[in-house]
């Protein structure tokens, strides 16, 4: 019997992903490409919001979309109908995207000539918050029917995003949802968070959101 030896590794899986994410961000900077990571629970309105955002910005920016889904391409078809470049990433049962998968997606999209790529992450408020995708900014959508207590239940997600979109505000009369309370709870976790109430259905607030995004893309490309 050969003799065993113990080899120390001491590697943190999260650290490895963080390093890859930093490298990806440096590449994005060189390519003057802005990557937004969009996260939320299933059905909060990511795809609908993307469609109205694309309509607002498509004359000014070259846009691409990456749709991450466990195993379907419904959202990719919806985006393709707007005439925007889109790629479907199948996560094969995984509940989040990491920096490596994001990078492969960007290659598949042939994104180098684009200004803005939005990654629609897997619908989930827990796991995506733990994996830096390499995105320049992180956004999340909380929709009115989900309830205003979500910052209390998913603090990590609210503490890592740069912007919080409160979607489906056209339904606010039907639900017991306090926008000011959400804003206060989110700011307690994350004082710099931007909060923008929108309705992807009626278009309310979309202009303010699109302006925010446009400004971020410019800052990334020019500074």
């Amino acid at each position, binding site marked *: 019997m050969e003799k065993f030896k113990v080899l120390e590794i001491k*590697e943190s*899986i*999260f650290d490895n992903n963080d390093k890859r994410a930093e490298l990806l961000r440096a590449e994005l900077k060189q390519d003057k490409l802005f990557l937004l990571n969009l996260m939320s629970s299933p059905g909060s309105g990511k795809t609908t919001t993307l469609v109205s955002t694309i309509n607002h910005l498509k004359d000014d920016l070259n846009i691409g979309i990456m749709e991450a889904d466990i195993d379907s391409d419904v959202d990719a078809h919806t985006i393709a109908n707007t005439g925007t470049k889109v790629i479907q990433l199948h996560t094969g*049962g*995984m509940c*989040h995207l990491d920096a490596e998968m994001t990078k492969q997606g960007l290659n598949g999209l042939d994104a180098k000539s684009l200004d803005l790529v939005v990654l629609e992450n897997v619908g989930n408020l827990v796991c995506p918050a733990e994996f830096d995708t390499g995105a320049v900014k992180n956004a999340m959508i909380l929709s009115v029917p989900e309830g205003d207590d979500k910052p209390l239940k998913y603090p990590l997600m609210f503490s890592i995003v740069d912007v919080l979109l409160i979607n489906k505000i056209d339904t606010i009369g039907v639900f017991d949802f306090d926008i000011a309370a959400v804003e206060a709870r989110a700011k307690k976790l994350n004082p710099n968070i931007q909060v923008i109430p929108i309705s992807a259905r009626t278009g309310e607030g979309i202009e303010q959101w699109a302006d925010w995004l446009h400004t971020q893309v410019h800052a990334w490309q020019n500074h």
Partner: protein
Amino acid sequence: MHELGVVIEVVKTVSEFAKTHQLQKVDTIVLQIGQLSSMIPKYIEDCYPAAVDGTPLEHTKLAIEVIPAEAICKQCHQIFNILQHQSKCPDCQCEDWGMLSGKEFLIKEVIAY
């Protein structure tokens, strides 16, 4: 599942490590998981066989060491277990503390020949 992606990453990292260190066979992978890590040891064990299936690590065992969630109180400097004491310093009841450990997810070592 939440844990599967991370376990696949572990298998990848260890496979590469085995290649660069020219290990013939990896007998055991030892992980360290913090009590407050979002990774649950039981789920890690459950999806491990699927992650190693068809890889050179197919017969490699998995061992998990749990790292306690410890904090130091910012008022009286008492060190205490966050879970046992419901996130409150057992000495002065203060809730202002700094975490010392408990969020880790590390590949500690491999036992190989």
